[in-house]
């Protein structure tokens, strides 16, 4: 069995940033395992621009952003193995992987960074009735076909869900000569960015139908059309509002799910709110030596924050592998207060905080004139700056300085909450 100090599962933006940080923290013997044929992860197919504004101060396309990290990894001569699928991770950090060239391999890792990313919610998770005809794809699958494989999945398109990938694909399919007939959203608001709604739908006259959903699909071999209907406040279709839209392609952009089968196998505790691991301020999971970062931890909006978070995980994994970390003792819980869902990190070692902690979460609803507040044991200790608006579609963040924890050494519970101005 091969010994590795830091093993990184996934060679996308999270894995690359973690590996670079681990090497910079002094780990020579590290390895990235990537299941696709090249590094870069999902960024390879995200050919639109808008990446890197926070990290590099300029707007890059996905492949350009990925290449900057790949170049850095090559410069540092970081070891990586593509075409390699990790099959199992044990709680004592034995990693089993398989590849066409190396066969079955086992590694004993001193530390592991989970950087597997996320996948799209499939049709099966929605329970749309109708035939199982061809022509129904997740938006990301269609994106891969068009941008990486050189295939066009269809000509007349309806998009269900208004997540950013769906919006981006509405424009992308239009650019390739398709007619995008509608973008149908169950909720009364889009989970996509305003900029994407304007520049991907409005610019091309594509209607965004809020409070609507697909109630039937027609076609035996190939999709022939979809029936959509308006939904009421209970999100159930309203009888009599059905309309039929002929189309040969239905794209689903209905959410992303962190990919945590390996984490579960390793005994990592998952959060029901994020579907990702429960971590502390060092991105350590409950299993000693296993860290998590990027979309496997919680689904991000911006890759810039994935890179930042993953670099921290890589550095912490390096410190663990090099024996530089002391036992942090018990951690206190971070709770979701009013309007807050899926706050990360979920645990903090309040007595050991030596760097700013960035709390990240999704607002439960759309709130106007709102600010993020932090309570220690029910007492307000921090008021963030006011925001005009917060919405579930945009991750909210608040950075807390170590001094605040130093000032309150006996805190036993942290609550992150929203305060809406009356």
């Amino acid at each position, binding site marked *: 069995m091969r010994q590795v100090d830091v093993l990184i599962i996934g060679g996308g933006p999270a894995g690359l940033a973690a590996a670079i940080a681990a090497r910079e923290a002094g780990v020579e013997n590290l390895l990235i395992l990537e299941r696709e044929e090249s590094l870069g992860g999902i960024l390879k197919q995200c050919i639109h621009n808008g990446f890197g504004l926070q990290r590099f101060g300029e707007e890059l396309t996905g492949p350009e952003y990925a290449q900057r990290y790949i170049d850095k990894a090559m410069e540092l001569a970081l070891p990586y193995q593509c075409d390699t699928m990790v099959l199992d991770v044990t709680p004592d950090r034995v990693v089993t992987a398989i590849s066409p060239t190396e066969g079955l391999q086992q590694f004993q890792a001193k530390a592991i960074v989970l950087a597997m990313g996320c996948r799209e919610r499939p049709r099966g998770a929605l329970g749309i009735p109708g035939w199982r005809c061809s022509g129904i794809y997740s938006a990301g699958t269609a994106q891969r076909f068009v941008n990486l494989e050189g295939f066009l999945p269809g000509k007349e398109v309806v998009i269900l869900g208004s997540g950013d990938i769906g919006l981006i694909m509405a424009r992308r399919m239009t650019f390739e000569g398709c007619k995008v007939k509608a973008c149908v959203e169950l909720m009364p608001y889009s989970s996509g960015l305003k900029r994407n709604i304007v*520049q991907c739908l409005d610019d091309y006259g594509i209607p965004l139908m809020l409070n609507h959903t697909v109630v039937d699909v027609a076609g035996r071999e190939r999709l022939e059309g979809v029936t959509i209907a308006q939904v009421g406040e209970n999100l159930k279709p309203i009888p009599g509002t059905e309309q039929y839209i002929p189309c040969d392609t239905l794209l689903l952009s209905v959410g992303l799910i962190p990919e945590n089968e390996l984490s579960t196998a390793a005994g990592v505790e998952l959060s029901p709110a994020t579907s990702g691991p429960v971590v502390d301020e060092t991105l350590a999971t409950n299993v000693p030596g296993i860290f998590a970062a990027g979309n496997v931890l919680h689904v991000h909006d911006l890759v810039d924050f994935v890179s930042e978070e993953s670099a921290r995980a890589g550095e912490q994994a390096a410190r663990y592998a090099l024996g530089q970390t002391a036992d942090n003792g018990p951690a206190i819980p971070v709770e979701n207060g009013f309007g807050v869902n899926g706050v990360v990190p979920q645990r903090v070692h309040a007595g050991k905080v030596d760097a700013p902690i960035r709390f990240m979460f999704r607002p439960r609803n759309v709130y106007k004139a709102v600010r993020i507040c932090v309570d220690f044991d029910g007492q307000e200790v921090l008021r963030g700056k006011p925001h005009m608006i917060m919405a579930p579609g945009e991750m909210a963040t608040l950075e807390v300085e170590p001094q605040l924890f130093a000032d309150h050494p006996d805190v036993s519970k942290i609550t992150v909450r929203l305060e809406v101005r009356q």
Partner: protein
Amino acid sequence: METRIMTCIGCPMGCQLTVEVENNQMVSVTGNTCKKGVEYARDEVASPTRMVTSVVRVPGRKAPLCVKTAQAIPKDQIFACLQAVRKAHVNLPVSIGDVVVPNVCNTGIDVIATRNLD
């Protein structure tokens, strides 16, 4: 005088703007919450521009080459630009930043590669 309705993209508020337009110039704007809305409406009326990203087929290769306009081009040139990109001929190898279509549609802006392809 013409009235246009648009959504400001200055922040997630997405204010619905009502813009009075004459001779392709903004006369007035209402519905904005802050001055970003005024600037957005003025630029959007006078000279709307967009970044364009797409792909070019490379003969003999499965993977197409992804490209972008080096800067935003006038919005009314988007489809002409895509047409020019479709007809572009790519000589391999290509590196990020290499020009694929020079001065696309006489905009003075090049279409450049956004990935390396050997």
